[in-house]
């Protein structure tokens, strides 16, 4: 048994440690198998330095054609599995070809690395940063070890951050500022990701269903851009209510689109469902909105990352009437990571 194990075992153990590994902040990352692991956190323009240790197993020697460490930034599309696209690739040669008999440590350093994109784990796409150590060997196959790390980038305070103010009036059709009514039977298919792409046609269809002069609201969110620990403040004002509303929710939805052109895949997730109102309001009521973003697992908005994917966030105001018909109005918000945050 020992013999067998020895045969398939890699000839050595490779470990990668960061110079300030003990002090550096670790953040949880979900692995493919669903487990959470803690990975060190870096920011763009940081120097990534550390040490690669190669420890041959007892009584073995490692012959190699060279040892190198690479810093890779990869985008991985799940529908195109196996195909990584490296947008960043830096290499350090650590050793010339030779043999390693005993433990050996190679320090390395990538000074002020440009890492423009944040680590992202989505439904259809993943953006990861990884250190890859390769002990190149000829016939036996190279020995490779990966060490993931997380990159997060801060944004400055947006110079312009207007509030969102919408007045929705069904009687104003055909305007674009309308609430959509969703046929309850068509709810599921319509909630699918294509819905948002077929904005125009949907409007037309829904307006013909017609709840003209039934519901007429005005709502306001204090900002259009929120940082990840922000609070969404706002209010919903009821100008006309002729239907019996049961409750009103505010949803945070993430739309992830991958690919381009005909191959575009859009995935929408509801990350937060937050009840704003219970019961039927009457005309003139104004309902406060206060939603803390902290408890939700959000990322900054990503726009066209390397022409591969985008992540957008929406606030979806949903009104449900007593017959469980849903009326909603969606507004895009921009999320960003603020410097002062602790993470």
């Amino acid at each position, binding site marked *: 048994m020992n013999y067998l194990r020895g045969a398939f075992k890699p000839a050595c153990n490779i470990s990668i440690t960061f110079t300030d590994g003990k002090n550096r902040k670790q953040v949880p990352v979900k692995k493919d198998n669903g487990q959470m692991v803690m990975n060190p956190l870096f920011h763009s323009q940081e120097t990534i330095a550390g040490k690669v240790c190669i420890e041959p197993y007892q009584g073995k020697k490692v012959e190699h054609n060279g040892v190198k460490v690479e810093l890779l930034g990869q985008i991985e599309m799940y529908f195109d599995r196996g195909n990584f696209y490296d947008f960043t690739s830096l290499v350090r040669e650590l050793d010339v070809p030779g043999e390693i008999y005993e433990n050996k440590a190679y320090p390395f350093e990538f000074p002020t690395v440009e890492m423009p994109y944040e680590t992202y784990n989505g439904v259809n796409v993943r953006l990861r940063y990884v250190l890859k150590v390769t002990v190149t060997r000829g016939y036996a196959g190279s020995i490779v070890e990966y060490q993931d790390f997380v990159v997060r980038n801060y944004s400055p305070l947006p110079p312009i951050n207007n509030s969102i103010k919408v007045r929705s009036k069904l009687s104003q059709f055909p305007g674009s500022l309308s609430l959509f009514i969703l046929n309850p039977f068509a709810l599921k298919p319509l909630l699918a990701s294509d819905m948002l792409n077929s904005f125009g046609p949907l409007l037309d269809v829904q307006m013909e269903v017609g709840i003209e002069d039934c519901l007429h609201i005005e709502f306001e969110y204090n900002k259009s851009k929120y940082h990840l620990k922000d609070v969404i403040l706002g209010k919903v004002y009821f100008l006309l209510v002729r239907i019996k509303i049961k409750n009103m929710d505010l949803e945070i939805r993430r739309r992830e689109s991958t690919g381009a052109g005909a191959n575009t895949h859009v995935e929408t997730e509801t990350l937060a469902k937050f009840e*704003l109102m*219970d*019961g*039927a309001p*009457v005309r003139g009521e104004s*309902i406060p909105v206060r939603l803390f973003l902290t408890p939700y697992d959000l990322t900054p908005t990503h726009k066209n990352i390397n022409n591969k994917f985008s992540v957008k966030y929406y606030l979806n105001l949903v009104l449900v009437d007593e017959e469980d018909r849903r009326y909603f109005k969606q507004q895009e918000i921009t999320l960003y990571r603020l410097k002062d945050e602790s993470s």
Partner: protein
Amino acid sequence: MIADGAGEDEEKWLAAGAAAFKQNAFYMQRAIDSNNLKDALKYSAQMLSELRTSKLSPHKYYDLYMRAFDELRKLEIFFMEETRRGCSVIELYELVQHAGNILPRLYLLCTAGSVYIKTKEAPAKEILKDLVEMCRGIQHPLRGLFLRSYLAQISRDKLPDIGSEYEGDADTVTDAVEFVLLNFTEMNKLWVRMQHQGPARDKEKREKERSELRDLVGKNLHVLSQLEGVDLDMYRDTVLPRVLEQIVNCRDEIAQYYLMDCIIQVFPDEYHLQTLDVLLGACPQLQPSVDIMTVLSRLMERLSSYAALNTEVLPYFLQVEAFSKLNNAIGKVIEAQEDMPILSAVTLYSSLLKFTLHVHPDRLDYADQVLGSCIKQLSGKGKIHDTRATKELVTLLSAPLEKYNDVVIALKLTNYPLVLDYLDSENKRVMATVIIRSIMKNKTIIATAEKVEALLELIKGLINDLDEPQGLEVVDEDDFEEEQNSVARLIHMLYSDDPEEMFKIISVLKNHFLTGGPKRLKFTIPPLVVSALKLIRRLPEEGDNPFGKEASVSATKIFQFLNQIIEALPSAPSPDLAFRLYLQCAEAANKCDEEPIAYEFFTQAYILYEEEISDSKAQVTALQLIIGTLQRMHVFGVENRDTLTHKATGYSAKLLKKPDQCRAVYACSHLFWLQDQETIQDGERVLRCLKRALKIANSAQQMTSAARGSTGSVTLFIEILNKYLYFYEKGIPQVTVESVESMIQLIKNEESLTSDPSAESFFASTLRFMEFQKQKGGVVGDKYEQIKV
């Protein structure tokens, strides 16, 4: 069945809710015990989710709410401990808001807010404002009401009131008031909204449910009234206008009624007094169906008792013109509510009257104004037939009597009789009885003719048949008699020391009574006669007038008056009464030395006797009266007296039954002998009378023995013997010892004596009397000594 089913289901739902609630409460408690804030929040939110149910009626929901309330107290204590352990309260305040469902979130927020205020890390007003605003998220009436009621509950001891440990800056009271007002307004809106939700057929059930919830809303007003900082200015400038605005604008009957009442009950009277016009101004703006009557009545009640307890505030009542404001307001309310029933209007005025009587007892004009306004409302509506309204009207009219205990005051109210006119005749009588009873109870003397006139106007229900056709109403005989008796009693309360005024009074009475119909005369005339006779007695002796002034009231005049009123009587079936009254008058005239008048009265009496008194028993009684009266008359000259006595003896002899004849005749003997009057001492005729009586007695006895075969009674003889003895004792020369002795002998011989025990004992006692007189000695004794038995 359906209702039962629903009730059962509800029980089930409540049980299920309570069970889930308990379970989560248990987990929460466990988390608290292990200081696990995250779990405590999680389980408390789950626990509170049970309050999201729509299936329970308010009553059952309250049950659940109370459980939540208790549990949240524990949570609050835990929060407090957490902050002491270093958990930032600001963080905590944010943390509770992460809950996804709004209802649990807001309950937790209120709880955390309570802790936040306690730590004083932020001004109370900011937190309270935030809480009350956030609660807008609950638009469901029932859940919203309870949530806000929870907010009110936890904030009660944390308002930034003056003197409170949470007192803030200069405007601190305003902040506290604003908070409560806002919560109140929102709660009321929710409460009113309940009315309009759900199917129309459940309206009744809904209204019942709403009334179960009303105290939740009213509590806010109570809180306001408890605030130290709500002084009069604050109340007048902020609290009241805002509350009224909400009340008026909600346009809901139940809410308006309840909240108006609430205002009146919870705030101090002093405030009401100073803001009367504002408060009253709101009344006409309420929905027409609101029972404003009760509201205003309560207000006036409160103000009256306030005035009663604190006499020093009375000037304020005048200063703010409380009365005229109330009066105007009532007018406006009635105007605004077109189809207000008469009952309400009358009740309102009744309360107003009570109010003014209590508060301004010296301002009779106010009371009169009330009555005037009342007339204005009643006019054009004819007599009131609604029994409750009538009853209320009677109460209204009784109020001044009860207050002043003096009907004279009521008589000064010019509108009083006008209001009275709106009663139907039955109630007029009731009212009249009330008035009379008041007079009798308080022994009020009514001393001027004018007032008497007014009083009679008030009680004319008793004096006249009124304009209503007779026979329409059946008045119970006993009731009628009782009423008339009370009128009779009343007459004695109408009294003036001044004869002239007194005469006017009785003249007024006469004028009224004579129109009262025969049924009443027999009750009303006698006391009037007595009253007049009393007056005569009080008149100064003629010629006694020191000023030589011709008195306007002379005995003659009164006698004429008497004659007139008694004349009215015979037409009624009571000749007996008139007869007696004539004799009374004759006697009075006798005392006044008015011979012709006395003679006239006698003549009237005789005529009545001859023409109207036909019953033999009545005749006997009448004749006895005549004899008795005539005997005492000393005013007559010989001739007149002769005529009258002769007539009297003539009547005696014409009585039907022999014994009656006998007795009348021996009674007549007294007419001829007056001990103290020299002129009337005719022994001859006395004896003649006695002899005649004896003769009649004899024939009476013979008649009985002839008709029945047995001997008649000897009683008559014994009676005659007594007469003999009387005159003998008086010393009439014609009545001799012999005649007495022969009389005794006659009786002794009568064989029937022994068979009649009563006659026997009568005779025996007569003999004993003689013996007794004999023993006494002296002149009388000597006289009896001579009689040999």
